[in-house]
């Protein structure tokens, strides 16, 4: 060690830390204080629009993990595919969003929710009913511009820090 600067370097550092006493902390107190997530959040659980889905299985093909399982049958009277089984094992899902992007009919959405932890692994497997939208299972705006504009804006740390300079 050589104090050729006579401790000025240390003094500068001490000044930076003491000045932080006067700044606001940047952390948030999570369960009480929540930030708005991105409008494009690739949150937990896919949301499925039963009406729009044609059962083309593009999502299943585009899934890198092979998470999506679709079984369809042909309905005689309506002349279209009927989705017999639509199963997503979210335990394997990596939330890459490729299925949502691939869906040609905008029938699949990423979830807007987070905090969807489960107690059993079995509960992670979502079937047809479990994939439908509900109050706590809102679709996110990922690759869906129409939904994106309806969601609230993300809170940014950039807007929160008050740094006087």
């Amino acid at each position, binding site marked *: *060690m*050589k*104090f*050729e600067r*006579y*401790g000025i370097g*240390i003094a500068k*550092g*001490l000044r*930076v*830390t*003491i000045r*932080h*006493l006067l*700044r606001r*902390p*940047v*952390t948030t*107190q999570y369960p009480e204080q929540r930030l708005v997530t991105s409008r494009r959040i690739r949150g937990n659980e896919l949301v499925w629009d039963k009406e729009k889905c044609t059962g083309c299985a593009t999502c299943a093909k585009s899934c890198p993990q092979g998470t999506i399982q679709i079984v369809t049958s042909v309905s005689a009277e309506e002349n279209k595919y009927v989705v017999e089984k639509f199963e997503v094992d979210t335990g394997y899902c990596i939330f890459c969003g490729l299925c949502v992007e691939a869906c040609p009919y905008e029938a699949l959405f990423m979830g807007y929710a987070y905090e969807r932890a489960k107690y059993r692994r079995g509960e992670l497997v979502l079937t047809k009913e479990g994939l439908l939208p509900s109050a706590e299972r809102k679709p996110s705006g990922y690759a869906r511009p129409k939904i994106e504009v309806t969601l609230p804006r993300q809170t940014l740390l950039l807007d929160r820090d008050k740094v006087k300079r």
Partner: protein
Amino acid sequence: MAMPVLPPDWPGGFWAHWGVFVVIIFVFVMAMVMGFIWFERRAMAIMQARLGPNRAGPFGVLQPVADAIKVLLKEDIIPAAGDKLVHWLAPVVAFVPVLMIFAVVPFQGGAILADLNIGILYVVAISSVTTVGIFMAGWASNNKYSLLGAMRQVASVVSYEIPVVLSIIGVVLLAGSLSLSQIVLAQDIPFILLQPLGFLLFFIGGCAEINRAPFDLMEADSEIVAGFHTEYSGMKFALFYLAEYGEALAISAIVTTLFLSGWRGPVLPPWLWFLLKVGLVFFVIVWIRTTVPRVRIDQLMALAWKFLFPLALINLIITAIEILAWPAASSWVIVLVNIAIMVVLVLLWSKFFRLGGGRVEV
């Protein structure tokens, strides 16, 4: 044992005094240590742009209590290949001396368990015992990280004891007494002004002895995990933790007593002055810890032997000369002279101080 500052109307005599003060010291140390843990975590957090503990109680003041309860309920683990007796004994050996230091610390005039006439010598002697406990912990854990940490601790304490004691002697020369309350009473001008260099050396050395950043090598978490207490859990870990903060408290208290005129101060009650000064010293320790990186072991040694030790010797000699040559000189002249001497010496040493060590050919 003479008790000159014991109030004459104190009921019950010596043993009542002893009993009351033991309880007071124990409660004081525990409360202050918990307060310090909270204070350090909060102050540090704010300096790091976060909030720190704020859940348990108002502003999180009960966090140390919650931690204590958690730690007490934890399983006590002893390494299978460790030395069980020593492993068990080590936290006690480390913690008890810390508590014993406070026996001679005057909280205000007369508020002292035992006003030993060799008070400061007692402090120096007792505080070193903690090292033995830490080395026992490092040895008994049968863990290489622990051993490294313990060896670092012994090395640093052995080195830093010398400049620390030398700078204390300067104070003792000025006060003319080894008793801590006599030293406080002698400080019409706080000794930080009369002994600026001594204060600097004592503060650096004290930080090194209690393993506070930048000298926290023995538990350097980024290097040797947790040092000597890697293998400790539960109550035994809590004792080490208490010992660590107790030492910090002790150093703050001794710095206050030796250099900041102890309990003395205007307007406020003496004990409050004492606490405020202790808190201030501790805040500076925390502040430094927040800012600076850690030194390396050879740099730690070099700092002790090449920087602090010669300066402490020179400081001692200068103090002695001043006392002998100009016993009647005005204190304020001496203050100015001493500050000038400190600046010159520190600059001079900074210029020529070179660090030893570096890469070793193997």
